């Protein structure tokens, strides 16, 4: 067991593309923590999805042995954090496991909203911040401006800011030295009741749940019986170990150390992020502070395209939830789509990830309905009902008010795009709370916005208005009453519940019009005319028609063409399978989401 004064626990706070994975790779390489043979790009991003999207979804940790130039040996634990606003709770727990953080900023781009938000989280958690300007080898790098910004925002002297290029390795040895010199070693008594923080849990099909833990005080020994303080679950610590990054079993983990725990747990909801591990025999009197139940913010319906796949979908969701305690699902029935599930997610990215994993890893063909948020319907009789599906909104006669969830959104943008950004926020019913120039070139704006207005395409709209330069972070900010109505969509005269949306009354007419014209583009011509209507409470507010198709046949088909034309027809036939039959109408699988992407 290493002495605590030779341990440094740190994470890297960085925006997507600012070079976090490359820096991690370089640290592992320079210290020799990983052999050249095992080296591949983005060692720490293990999921295919992470590599493809260039983001970190699950936190990874790695133990790096480091000998400083003065000959002293250290253990550096790099605790990787998820890099997206959907996972800010997971980020905060990863930070809680550290004493310091590298703040990695692209010297050409400057600091981004989410990075800033995470830096504030880190400062709030008492972490020592080591700022690093990365990519200084790029011609567009402007370290002086970026350094001035960081200094202004975080109150750090510019002399403390390191310059590096993770790509070339320049400045990386200095980063290692700064880690051991500036970041405090952990403290914590060994001879007290065990308290260890779970900052990540994932499900492995062979070993069950594997939790990443940080021992705060006490000692965790292999084979001992442990207890999760939030869930009360008690298990035997079958294996404990450290990540080098390969799993390497050890006999015990003491205060300040980081490692993993395998305890025969079959479901991650038994070992949730933020929970405290203690000993079953000699439990701690209080858990570590700050545990929260994961709270879904965005909901959508997931339905199998082929109704016969419903049982398979249920099994897939069960399996997936073993690995993801923050997503929820409950059975739901739609008149249009049949049996499916209403699922809750931390945010839109989380939703997309779950859907993609279901399709890729479990081979499901799914229809996703429009994402929605959790409304509160305040009834005339004083009751409050939670509304997660538009069709659950009670009729206006029974309603006293509808309250919608709000967020406080922080946007950082180059000042030249301030106008368009404000217009966008205004159009999304935003209320400005604050506006501050970070430098002549950059502005921080804070808006109070309805969550519903940002879940679908706000980020895309923000990016397109600022040529990709603006960044966004948001946090929940309570509920607020609003004048909301449900807009229904009828196909061939029949309401399709899956297309219903809750919309602000002032926007309902424009929304209905845009929705039906978008659907007219999305629904292919079929054998009959198809009327598409939008309605509020039975009153039609917009209508379009998809005219019946009259010709689709291939003009010629001779001997030489048979194989080629067959392939053409087979492709069309396969395309049909991705259509959902709703009444007499065939609707493309992605229409339920695409219809919502109405340019505003």
């Amino acid at each position, binding site marked *: 067991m290493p002495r605590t004064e030779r341990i440094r626990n740190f994470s890297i706070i960085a925006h997507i593309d600012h070079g976090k994975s490359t820096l991690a790779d370089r640290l592992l390489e320079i210290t020799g923590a990983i052999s050249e043979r095992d080296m591949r790009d983005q060692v720490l991003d293990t999921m295919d999805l992470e590599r493809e999207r260039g983001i970190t979804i699950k936190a990874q940790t790695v133990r790096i042995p480091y000998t400083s130039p003065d000959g002293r040996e250290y253990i550096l634990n790099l605790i990787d954090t998820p890099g997206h606003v959907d996972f800010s709770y997971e980020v905060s727990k990863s930070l809680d496991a550290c004493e310091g953080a590298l703040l990695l900023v692209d010297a050409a781009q400057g600091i981004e909203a989410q990075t800033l938000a995470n830096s504030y989280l880190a400062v709030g958690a008492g972490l020592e911040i080591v700022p690093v300007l990365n990519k200084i080898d790029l011609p567009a790098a402007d370290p002086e401006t970026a350094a001035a910004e960081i200094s202004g925002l975080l109150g750090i002297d510019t002399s403390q800011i390191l310059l590096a290029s993770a790509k070339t390795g320049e400045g990386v040895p200095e980063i290692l030295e700064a880690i051991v010199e500036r970041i405090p070693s952990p403290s914590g008594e060994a001879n007290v009741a065990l308290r260890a923080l779970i900052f990540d849990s994932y499900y492995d099909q062979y070993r069950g749940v594997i939790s990443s833990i940080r021992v705060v005080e006490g000692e965790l020994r292999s084979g001992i019986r442990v207890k999760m303080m939030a869930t009360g679950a008690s298990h035997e610590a079958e294996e404990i170990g450290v990540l080098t990054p390969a799993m390497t079993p050890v006999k015990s983990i003491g205060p300040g150390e980081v490692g993993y725990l395998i305890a025969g747990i079959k479901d991650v909801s038994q070992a949730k992020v933020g929970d405290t591990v203690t000993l079953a025999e000699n439990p701690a009197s209080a858990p570590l502070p700050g545990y929260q139940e994961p709270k879904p913010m965005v909901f959508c319906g997931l339905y199998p395209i082929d109704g016969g796949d419903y049982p398979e979908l249920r099994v897939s969701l069960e399996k997936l939830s073993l690995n993801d305690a923050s997503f929820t699902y409950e059975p739901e029935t739609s008149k249009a789509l049949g049996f499916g599930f209403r699922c809750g997610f931390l945010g839109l990215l989380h939703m997309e990830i779950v859907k993609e994993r279901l399709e890729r890893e479990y081979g499901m063909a799914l229809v996703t309905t429009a994402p929605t948020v959790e409304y509160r319907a305040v009834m005339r009789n004083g009751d409050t009902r939670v509304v997660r599906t538009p069709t659950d909104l009670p009729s206006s006669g029974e309603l006293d008010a509808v309250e919608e969830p709000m967020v406080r959104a922080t946007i950082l943008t180059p000042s030249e795009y301030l106008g368009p950004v404000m217009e966008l926020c205004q159009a999304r019913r935003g209320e400005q709370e604050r506006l501050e120039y970070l430098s002549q070139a950059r502005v921080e704006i804070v808006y109070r916005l309805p969550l519903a207005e940002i879940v679908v395409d706000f980020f895309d709209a923000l990016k397109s208005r600022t040529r990709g330069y603006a960044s966004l972070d948001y946090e929940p900010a309570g509920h607020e009453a609003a004048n909301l109505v449900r807009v229904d969509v009828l196909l061939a005269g029949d309401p399709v519940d899956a297309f219903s949306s809750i919309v602000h009354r002032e926007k309902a007419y424009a929304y209905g019009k845009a929705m039906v014209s978008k659907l007219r583009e999305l629904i292919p011509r079929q*054998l*009959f005319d198809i009327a598409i209507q939008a309605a509020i409470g039975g009153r039609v507010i917009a209508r379009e028609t998809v*005219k019946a*198709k*009259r*010709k*689709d*046949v*291939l*003009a*010629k*088909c*001779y*001997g*030489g063409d*048979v*194989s080629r*034309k*067959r392939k053409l*027809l*087979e492709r*069309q*036939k396969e395309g*049909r*399978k991705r259509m959902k039959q709703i009444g007499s109408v065939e609707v493309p699988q992605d229409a339920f989401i695409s219809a919502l992407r109405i340019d505003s």
Partner: protein
Amino acid sequence: MIATTPVHPDAPELADYCAGLFGIYVHVPFCTAKCGYCDFASFDGMSDLAGTYVEGLCQEVSKSGISSCDTVFVGGGTPTSLGPDLLGKLIAAIPRSDEAEVTVEANPESLTADVAIAAAAAGANRISIGMQSALPHVLKSLGRRHNFGAVAAAVDAARGAGIGRLNLDLIYGAPGEALADWRQSLDAAIALDPGHISAYSLTVEAGTKLWRQVRDGHCRAPDDDSQAEKMSVAAEILANAGYVRYEVSAWAKPGEACRHNLMYWGGGEYRGFGSGAHSHIGGTRFWNHRDPRSYLSDLGVLSAGSERITSEIEVFDRVSLGMRRAAGVSISELPRGCEGAIDFLSGAGLVLATDGRLRPTAKGFALGNEIVIRLLSVAGSEC
């Protein structure tokens, strides 16, 4: 044999009879100029190869060991561009029965009297002329070099050589063709009194010059609605003139249906000679190299590709080819479990189920893909 052959172009008996014929297809890959919409294996600027090519093709025929067939179709490219001597030599080299239907494809400008006489002397008894349109501006937009006068002259040349069975190919939907233009082309074709008329919807095939023009915004692809309109105008005008529609794009007077094509659509067997030619024999489809030079280097000894017809493909082809015909397909030969699809398609007015056969209606001819996809999208898709 012709006397005993059913004469009605849309008769199931004729369709079934032709499905049992053995055909030979001969490909002539040369053209004076490649048309903008054409994606067949044809090449311009290679006519110096013609002599070698015919020589090689004759070798491929003799090496094949095939001793006879019931139908011959010499297509292209432009077979008539070979000139009288080479064309005659090529036709004469094809083994066939005395009653065989022997069709030669021709371009109006190259079907001269001497070519027609040579073809007839070598055994051709049917000529298919690429008329495409009667209107100069439509021909121009299709990139064709002839005029309607050349079509009339070609018809005279064929008849003068004693070839009475004629087809005129028409194309509708060229950029700039009005509905009235199309009617005029149909009337002009009918006035020449061929026994057979084919009317094809212009298709923008990937990789063609037309496709590039559409992609680059220089012209617009014909839209399905106006094409549907032109197809129904063709059906009406041709029916009034006594032509019977027996396939999506084919109309004939009694006794004039093309047996070779009915053989294709009935899933019959055939052997293709020449570059890019496809064959269907013994449950396999295979094809020669598309490029004439590659073809000449091995003369079809090694096919460029092949495909084993599985039972699934067999069903697919039977339905997708068979339902192109007015005679349709025997209901007993449709995939099991497709009763629901038949009911739906009947209800939508695309097919008629009578006398144990499922046939396309006029509406169904235009929506053939819908018919095929629905009939084949049933569980199992096996017979």
